[in-house]
Structures are given as C-alpha cells and as structure tokens.
C-alpha cells in the first residue's frame, strides 16, 4: 500500500503533464467510512487523494461515463489522456473497455494500485454503526486497521473485506503505465464454492430466493450505471420502441431486467462487485454475475479483462463448445 505522500506526489506530477486532462482517484468521504471518487484537475486537488481499503469505487466506470459535450464549431475536442487509479479488478475493467473499444489505449494513463482488498461497508457498519466522524483505514500485515472514533481497531482480512475480494484472482493491476507500491499475493481461486452450493438447491428454492430479491428491486439502475461495462448511449432496457422491458416495477419486469443485465455481462463481467455494493435494496447481484463467470470459466476457459488483444467471448465460438444440452 503506497503512502499518501507518494500517491499525491505522483498525482501532482501526472496532472502537471500537458497530455493529461484530469486524474481520477479517491478521496475521503464526507462522513464515516465513506470515500468518494475524486477528480483531480489542478495539482492542488491532489492533496485530497487517498488510497485505502475503503476505496471501493471502480473508477473505470468514469472512463466510459464521461459525457461528450458538443465541441464548439471551430475548436478541437480535448483528446488529452485521462489518468486513472485502478485496483486489480478496476484494471480488468479498463482492459475490457479496451477490448470493446470503449476507450483507446492512448486516451488513458493507468496508475496501478495493487490491492489487498476493500472493506465491505455493510460488515463494518454492522460492527460500528452511526459513525459520523471520518475514519481512516490501511492495511497492516494482511489485516485492516481502522482509526475509529473509539480508537484503533484491527480486523483480519477474511472478516472485513468484500466477498469479491475473498475470491479475487487479480489483486494486481493487469494493465498499468505506472504502479504504486508492491504487487500483492494472489489468493483467490476459481472454485466457485458459493455458486456450487447454491446450484444444488432445488429449482423451487432457487426461484423463491431470487423472487424475493428481485421483488425488492426498485429499478433505480444504480447497478447498471455503476457498471464499468455498461455504457451504451441508450440502454436497450430503456428503449420503449420496442420495449424489451416495461417501465412498471414488478416481479416480472424486475426479473427480466436483472436477467438481461446479467446476461449482457456474460463474458464481460470483471467481478468488481460494484453492482452489488451500490444496490440500495441489497440484492446479491454479483452472485448472479459470478454464476456466469463460473460458466464462462469452466465451459469456455475464458477470462475477460486480462488481455487487451483478446476477442470478446460471445463474438466467437469453438466447434467443440459444450453442447450436451442440445436435443
């Protein structure tokens, strides 16, 4: 984990370059454990940058989310690079965006941040609710150390990090122009034990589980909007002509929406878990995505977001793809 001085110095140096438009990093949030994406436009902005186990946001989303304002006639669009801090999973998003040509390699300057994991705020809030004072956090010998108002607390990694981090296979950025700090050890596996456990339940049990979850969905679209892979000009699920999904919020449309969302990420999901983190009604969305990650891994030996030269999964095939379900 880099110290903040080093991070800020690098950020200042980066933003001072002529070919950098702005830098996206994280800053301390307005209260408690929160952190917020931070846009560094002038060197002074860099003083607020942090990188800690509380920095969950996948900033790659903002590469695709950047709004294109009309360029005034006669002037040229600003084609300078966007510098971005990425954790391992975030870097996969960058790679997958490169694969899908959402961004161009020369348009980004990637600052890699090897990552031991991010804290699951829900777990933390359960332990220490109602925390208004800003809390700092850092990694210490594989544990998360938190500066709580009540004093310092240390938690073992397994106890406090987000589920996605426990299975993470890419803690180190897979693409970076410069890397902050040392690479960390890879501990995740592709065992998909959680998914396997769920799969053995009966169809009725599975449906009941998801029905209850999808019933809660309020279709705020945070899961979609936060996803670094979702950046169509107009989402096919918003279209009214033809309407794949109706606007009304009920179990049928919600289920269809979530199925479509998950399917659209098949072979593209880079497991940053942001969809699940932002869900205000706590639908375990990454579980749905991980099911497809499992199939993509096991059936097609495919891992999205690791090779910028790779072809996307669903644009090709192998003649010997699994077909045992075919009548």
């Amino acid at each position, binding site marked *: 984990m880099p110290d903040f001085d080093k991070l800020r110095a690098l950020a200042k140096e980066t933003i001072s370059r002529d070919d950098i438009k702005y830098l996206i990093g994280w800053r301390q949030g307005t209260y408690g454990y929160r952190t917020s994406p931070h846009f560094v436009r002038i060197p002074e902005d860099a003083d607020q940058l942090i990188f800690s186990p509380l920095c969950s946001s996948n900033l790659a989303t903002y590469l695709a989310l950047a709004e294109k304002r009309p360029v005034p006639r006669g002037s040229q669009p600003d084609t300078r690079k966007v510098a971005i801090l990425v954790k391992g999973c975030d870097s996969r998003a960058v790679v997958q965006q490169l694969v899908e040509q959402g961004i161009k390699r020369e348009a980004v300057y990637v600052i890699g941040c090897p990552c031991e994991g991010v804290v699951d705020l829900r777990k933390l809030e359960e332990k220490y609710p109602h925390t208004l004072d800003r809390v700092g956090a850092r990694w210490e010998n594989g544990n998360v150390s938190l500066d709580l108002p009540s004093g310092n607390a240390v938690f073992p990694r397994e106890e406090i990090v987000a589920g996605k981090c426990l299975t993470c296979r890419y803690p180190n950025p897979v693409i970076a122009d410069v890397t902050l700090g040392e690479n960390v050890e890879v501990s995740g596996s592709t065992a998909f034990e959680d998914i396997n456990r769920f799969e053995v339940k009966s169809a009725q049990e599975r449906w009941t589980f998801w029905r209850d979850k999808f019933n809660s969905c309020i279709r705020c679209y945070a899961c979609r909007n936060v996803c670094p892979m979702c950046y169509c000009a107009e989402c096919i699920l918003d279209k009214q002509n033809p309407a794949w999904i109706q606007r009304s919020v009920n179990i049928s449309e919600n289920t269809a929406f979530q199925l479509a969302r998950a399917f659209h990420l098949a072979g593209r999901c880079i497991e940053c878990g942001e969809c699940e983190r932002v869900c205000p009604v706590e639908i375990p969305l990454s579980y749905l995505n991980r099911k497809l990650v499992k199939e993509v891994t096991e059936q097609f030996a495919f891992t999205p977001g690791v090779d910028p030269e790779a072809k996307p999964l669903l644009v090709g*095939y192998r003649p010997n793809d699994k077909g045992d379900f075919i009548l």
Partner: protein
Amino acid sequence: MSENFEPNVVAFLCNWCSYAGADLAGTSRIEYPSNLNVIRVMCSGRVNPMFVVNALQQGADGVLVSGCHPGDCHYMEGNFLARRRVALMRELLNFVGVDERRFNMSWVSASEGAKWRDVVKGVVDNLHEVGAFTEFPRKKIDW
C-alpha cells in the same frame, strides 16, 4: 398442477435447416403435439437470448431454439454462436430457478422430419412435467 395443463411453447427455427425439417415433418404427415408455435428466423444466430426471457414473460411455458447441425449452418457459424449464447442463458435461467427444461435447443436438419417430431414431443412432454410458470409471466402477476 391442473390435470389439463397444456404447455405453450414458442420456437425459433432457422430458415434453412430446422424450419425446412419441420416442413418435411409436415409433408411426411408426421403427427406431433400442437403446443408449439414457430417463429421463423433466417439463422439460429439471429436469436437473441433475451427473446427467451421475453417469451417467458409473455406467457410461454417453454422456448425452443433450433438450428442446423454443426458445420451445416447456411451462414457457416451462426448456430455455433447461438450455442454459446443459449448455453449461458440456460445456465442463468436455471440459476434463478427457471427449470432448464423450459429452454431447449436442438439441431434439426432439413431431412430430419422425424427428429423434429421427437424434439417437439420431448419438449412438450417435459413441460407437462414441469408445469405452468405462474410467477414470471406479466399477465399472471398483479397487473
């Protein structure tokens, strides 16, 4: 489930093999259940897996996608592309508890009228077992 439940199946058939195969079943007067209705597409590669979700939402109890045998695709590889898509959508549906027998895929060539009968029969028989799908279709919910 009700004794006289008759499943409703929507099938997407590619023009060159499966649709022709179904035509052959017709010209050969091969009888099969009437629960399955066909939508013709030029290639199984045209079938967006979201059609399946949509069909279930619209009230279908099951869906079938049928294309050419591997290597026979009129468009060379559309059926291979479809196979991948279908494989993943099937897994996804199954994962959320939609019985996988509701979503089938078959290879039926233009010469396989009898196979077409078997496929239809198999799909419909299976759906008799699975039963109606009451919680997902739009019309069935409080609308």
